[in-house]
């Protein structure tokens, strides 16, 4: 939402987030190092770095993938989402360290180019069990690099939000490749079942959380579209042509919204200062659910990254430029009606007054 781009738009929350994250990284590396030295006293520094950075990056990827569904299931996890990009970039740097040390230790000491050696030292691409797992790690690292390198708001704006979002969904492809990378690596090089078990547990957690969040969202959307219209007088029927019954005024808490799915439109109906306004539910930044946000300082505030919109016209307050569609709202008695025909993004519509 920056007007001019900063390297990082620091806030006290981001500083705290980064401090906690770096403490976790340092704590993990220290603990892992001590454990490895205790279990394998002969271990070399390079192998220790490869193992520590690889396992930590993979663990952090699980945390990153779990944050989204966790926030949908339990909104108290939302603070973890606000600065997820720093978590992602740190995870990439750890994965990169793991990759570079691997490349140097196993592929840079011969005559061949390190990358040619990486792809050419094991060419059993047709075999499932003997498949070259390092190639999978390389391709996953490329995806993680693309995501980390394009995490700045400059890329969101210039690649356009749909392309940027599609690019960043590549994290699931990277995750699938990394699961295979770890599993094949264990099958081909290790004997201990611990890593296989932990990877299975991680996969089960990530998939389970995504399934639960999708189920909750489906339930919510079913509730948002199933309504019984109250009986109307003939005069009311005329003024309400094109409008659909949304809910009762009392169903919406102050400075909060109700999600509506009306004729396929995803609408957030907000109640604030004795008024009601409706805007499109998806934030322009990363498609965050505006209906789960609050009205703060007179602005609808996205729960994901704090992007703001004025409820009356769906525009971000100046000098920002984001806009969402708006809808007409009417109140009759205690009932709220919304016309699901969207107005162009940023169109001013008078709010409905709660009598």
């Amino acid at each position: 939402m920056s007007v001019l781009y900063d390297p990082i738009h620091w806030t006290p929350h981001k500083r705290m987030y980064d401090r906690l994250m770096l403490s976790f990284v340092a704590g993990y590396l220290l603990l892992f190092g001590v454990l490895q030295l205790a279990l394998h006293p002969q271990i070399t520094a390079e192998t220790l770095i490869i193992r520590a950075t690889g396992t930590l990056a993979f663990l952090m990827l699980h945390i990153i993938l779990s944050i989204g569904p966790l926030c949908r299931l339990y909104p108290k996890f939302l603070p973890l989402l606000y600065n997820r990009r720093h978590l992602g970039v740190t995870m990439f740097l750890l994965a990169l360290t793991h990759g570079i040390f691997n490349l140097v230790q196993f592929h840079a000491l011969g005559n061949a180019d390190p990358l040619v050696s990486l792809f050419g030292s094991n060419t059993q691409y047709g075999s499932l069990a003997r498949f070259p797992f390092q190639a999978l790690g390389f391709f996953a690292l490329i995806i993680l690099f693309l995501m980390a390198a394009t995490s700045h708001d400059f890329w969101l704006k210039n690649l356009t939000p749909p392309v940027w979002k599609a690019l960043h969904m590549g994290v699931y492809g990277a995750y699938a490749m990394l699961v295979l990378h770890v599993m094949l690596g264990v099958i081909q090089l290790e004997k201990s079942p611990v890593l296989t078990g932990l990877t299975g547990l991680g996969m089960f957690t990530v998939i389970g959380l995504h399934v639960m969040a999708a189920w909750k969202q489906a339930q919510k959307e079913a509730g948002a579209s199933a309504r019984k219209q109250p009986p109307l007088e003939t005069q009311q029927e005329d003024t309400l042509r094109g409008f659909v019954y949304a809910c009762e005024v009392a169903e919406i808490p102050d400075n909060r919204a109700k999600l509506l799915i009306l004729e396929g439109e995803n609408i957030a109906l907000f109640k604030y200062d004795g008024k009601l306004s409706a805007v499109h539910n998806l934030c322009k930044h990363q498609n965050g659910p505006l209906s789960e946000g609050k009205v703060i300082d007179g602005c609808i505030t996205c729960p994901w990254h704090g992007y703001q919109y004025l409820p009356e016209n769906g525009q971000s307050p100046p000098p920002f430029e984001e806009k969402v569609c708006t809808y007409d709202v009417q109140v009759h008695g205690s009932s709220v009606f919304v016309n699901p025909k969207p107005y162009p993004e940023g169109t001013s519509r008078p709010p409905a007054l709660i009598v």
Partner: protein
Amino acid sequence: MKTIEFLVDLFYLYLFFGVVFAAMFLCRGAALIDEAARGISWKTRALLFPGSVAMWPVLWRKWRKTARKMKTATSNETL
């Protein structure tokens, strides 16, 4: 092995073009395609450098498109 060598060379070539392009893009092109990138600090430019290396074909297309648009607008004003 020959195929692998060829693909790896192609990868290095892509990176080489990317590095050259990114240096030019962050000096001139970024501000042209995005007003908010005018006068950005060197720290921000450094942060955008890896992405510019990776995404150079997309950015090159966008830069050319914007430059062509500006040229057309200038020649229309002259007329």
